[in-house]
């Protein structure tokens, strides 16, 4: 439960931060209904953008797996383009540093 709540809050923060970074401030004041409508649209757009990016990543890693990766140890795979290593599907700070040096 603790994790659920924290994840919800953090996911909210991520979306909010993304929107703060991407969306311009409204030039005119909106009423509550208008705000909700804008919030809905922005939320759906943000989710759709993230889903689109994940689809692209899937294609990059699983459909077009080229020479840009190394497997420094059993169960560890590192992608040069992302400068990131994963062990058992989880990001590995240790292996990323070990392979890419920072």
């Amino acid at each position, binding site marked *: 439960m603790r994790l659920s709540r924290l994840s919800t809050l953090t996911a909210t923060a991520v979306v909010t931060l993304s929107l703060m970074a991407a969306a311009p401030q409204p030039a005119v004041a909106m009423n509550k209904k208008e705000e909700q409508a804008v*919030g809905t649209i922005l939320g759906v757009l943000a989710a759709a953008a993230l889903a689109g990016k994940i689809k692209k990543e899937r294609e990059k890693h699983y459909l077009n797996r080229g020479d840009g990766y190394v497997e420094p140890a059993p169960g560890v795979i590192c992608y040069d383009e992302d400068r990131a290593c994963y062990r058992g599907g989880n990001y590995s700070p240790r292996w990323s540093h070990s392979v890419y040096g920072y």
Partner: protein
Amino acid sequence: MIRTTTLCLALFSATSALAQDAATPGHGQLVDSAVSTMVEETTGKMLSPEQLTILKSIAHQLAVTTVCPGFAVDEARRSEELMRLAPTGEGKPERTPEESAALQAVAVFAIGAHMGATMAVAINDEAAFCAHAEEERAEPGAHLIYAPKS
């Protein structure tokens, strides 16, 4: 309140759809990679590849200390890692207060985005996520900010 709930629902509707592919190897990796791309695009050229990697590493470990029991941050190590973001001293570039503030802002954004995504992925299999973190902590190596296991 309603707006916040709507945003949460929108995000989770996306992640739920993705969760249907949970059997696909590397689901968490795909999310992680997508967020990395988003952070890189959003912050433009403000952060170098090295800085992006350092921030991602810090964020991942902060997520671990939030999700996994028995993990804590070693404050001295965290400070060392943050210092690597903006090294100072002889031969290092001088930064204006405005440049430092801008760097801090994008760093907070990057850590928040990575941390949130990591926690959202962790919820799919908390035990495996924490077991992996335990492996990482147990092996000798540099640049981890975990406090030693007590």
